[in-house]
């Protein structure tokens, strides 16, 4: 029998500390939609998504109501579209079908306008990547990602060079909206196939036909729990684990029950602590609660490493199906504490890069000056990919060169994407390095000192 204290704790977590299930994401394979004709492929894609995910939003809303916990986002991820359009070139037909389907079923985002080019890039993949700016600028709900490197293959520097240009083009095409298209595009190293979070979600080719993945959240809950810990760092880590366990158990319940009601495979729970711009829902504030004057202070990387590790340890105990990215996200524009620290210069892009060595993903939702050259953006991608490749972890870059704005200005993306002060980037040119092209060979997997 549950006691009143436990009931009260759960209610307070939801009500006061912003505990929610951040996303239920239905992964849909589009491999059976491939046809010779772009038009027919697009029709099959639309039909499959609207049929398979017809009840996703209602099911999630009903369950949220029964359990009394918000399920904030309902999303769909699909097989990387570059594979679906490989033999017919119908990239833009398919993205319009994806956007139309997303609107029809009432989800907020659909991910998978993606290409996996971590070792080599075929001509059709290059054409596909070159369609991304037009695709993202002319649709609303579809997100895109490109995997340019992995620990096993090294980094495809031709793709890195191309992505610098693509990000600039995305920015220019949506200059009137603070270059919003860039917020829907992620460049990965070691991309995972079951990530439920946007903008980087896609449905891997090794997955089932239909799989439901869930992303939990709860930075506010962890921060609140730490307020009562006055002991040493072992006790801090212990409290984070205990809290992550409870959060994950809720995610696991929602994943099982939603999958059962939809009649699809129950996939993974992603343990990521995902912040929102709302006060009391910040990863930066957890680090400050541990004992930093501000995120960005010396000691930030160590605190984040401990937080990330403790979240995983607690979560792993709570569910046998943990996957996705699973760690602490540090998206600047989506975290009130990160926004404050970048505004007043306590946090810069170099420290953020150091933090990505130990946290879940990478340089995420960072607004940079609109005149940042393509090769500098490629340099940022190369650095971040190198961190992922060498450390055998996922890293990503989602930077927004905000056209017409510079350091000290603000970019406003709205909603969950938040707003961000534009921060400085090192202006020295990596042009010759980027222009060399080719591949950075895969790293050694022994002699690890």
């Amino acid at each position: 029998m549950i006691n009143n204290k436990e009931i009260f704790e759960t209610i307070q977590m939801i009500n006061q500390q912003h505990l929610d299930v951040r996303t239920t994401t239905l992964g849909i394979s589009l491999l059976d939609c491939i046809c010779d004709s772009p038009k027919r492929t697009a029709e099959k894609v639309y039909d499959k998504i609207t049929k398979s995910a017809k009840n996703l939003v209602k099911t999630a809303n009903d369950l949220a109501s029964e359990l009394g916990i918000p399920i904030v986002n309902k999303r769909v991820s699909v097989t990387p579209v570059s594979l679906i359009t490989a033999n017919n070139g119908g990239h833009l037909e398919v993205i319009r079908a994806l956007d139309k389907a997303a609107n029809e079923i009432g989800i907020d985002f659909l991910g998978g306008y993606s290409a996996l080019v971590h070792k080599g890039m075929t001509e059709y993949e290059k054409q596909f990547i070159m369609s991304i700016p037009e695709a993202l600028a002319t649709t609303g709900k579809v997100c895109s990602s490109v995997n340019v490197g992995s620990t096993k293959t090294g980094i495809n520097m031709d793709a890195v060079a191309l992505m610098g240009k693509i990000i600039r083009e995305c920015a220019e095409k949506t200059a009137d909206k603070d270059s919003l298209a860039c917020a829907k595009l992620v460049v990965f190293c070691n991309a995972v196939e079951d990530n439920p979070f946007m903008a980087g979600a896609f449905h891997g080719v090794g997955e089932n036909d239909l799989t439901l993945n869930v992303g939990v959240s709860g930075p506010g809950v962890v921060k609140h729990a730490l307020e009562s810990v006055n002991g040493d760092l072992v006790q801090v880590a212990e409290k984070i684990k205990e809290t992550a366990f409870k959060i994950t158990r809720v995610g696991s319940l929602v994943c099982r029950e939603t999958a059962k009601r939809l009649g699809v495979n129950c996939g993974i729970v992603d343990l990521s602590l995902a912040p929102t711009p709302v006060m009391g829902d910040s990863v930066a504030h957890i680090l400050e609660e541990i004992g930093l004057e501000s995120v960005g202070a010396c000691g930030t990387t160590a605190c984040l490493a401990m937080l990330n590790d403790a979240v995983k340890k607690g979560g792993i105990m709570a569910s046998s199906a943990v996957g996705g990215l699973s760690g602490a996200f540090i998206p600047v524009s989506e975290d009130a504490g990160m926004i404050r620290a970048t505004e007043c210069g306590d946090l810069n892009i170099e420290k953020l890069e150091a933090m990505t060595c130990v946290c879940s993903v990478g340089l995420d939702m960072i607004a940079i000056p609109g005149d940042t050259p393509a090769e500098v953006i490629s340099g940022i991608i190369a650095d971040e990919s190198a961190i992922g490749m060498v450390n055998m972890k996922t890293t990503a870059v989602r930077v927004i060169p905000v056209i017409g704005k510079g350091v000290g200005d603000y970019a406003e993306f709205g909603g969950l994407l938040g707003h961000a002060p534009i921060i400085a980037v090192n202006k020295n040119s990596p042009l010759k390095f980027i222009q060399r092209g080719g591949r950075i060979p895969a790293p050694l997997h022994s002699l690890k000192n």
Partner: protein
Amino acid sequence: MKAIVSVIGKDKKGIIAKVSNILYENDINIEDISQTIMQDYFTMIMMVSISANSDVTKLSDILTKTGEELGVTIRVQHEDIFNAMHKL
């Protein structure tokens, strides 16, 4: 299904009467009831059983509205969320 009805807020006359009446009208049996002060909040917790064909969303809406009238927060939640979080 088993569910938890919780009332949190400032104590006043008629809370139990009103909530019990709504539950009765919706054919819901109260199995256990307790009230206490938790972190300065008046907290009433009821364990109830709801028949499978009941509309929980509708019940939740009615209780939320009643809570607003009484100046308290009333929730109905499936017991699974508490079991998941607190029981191994």
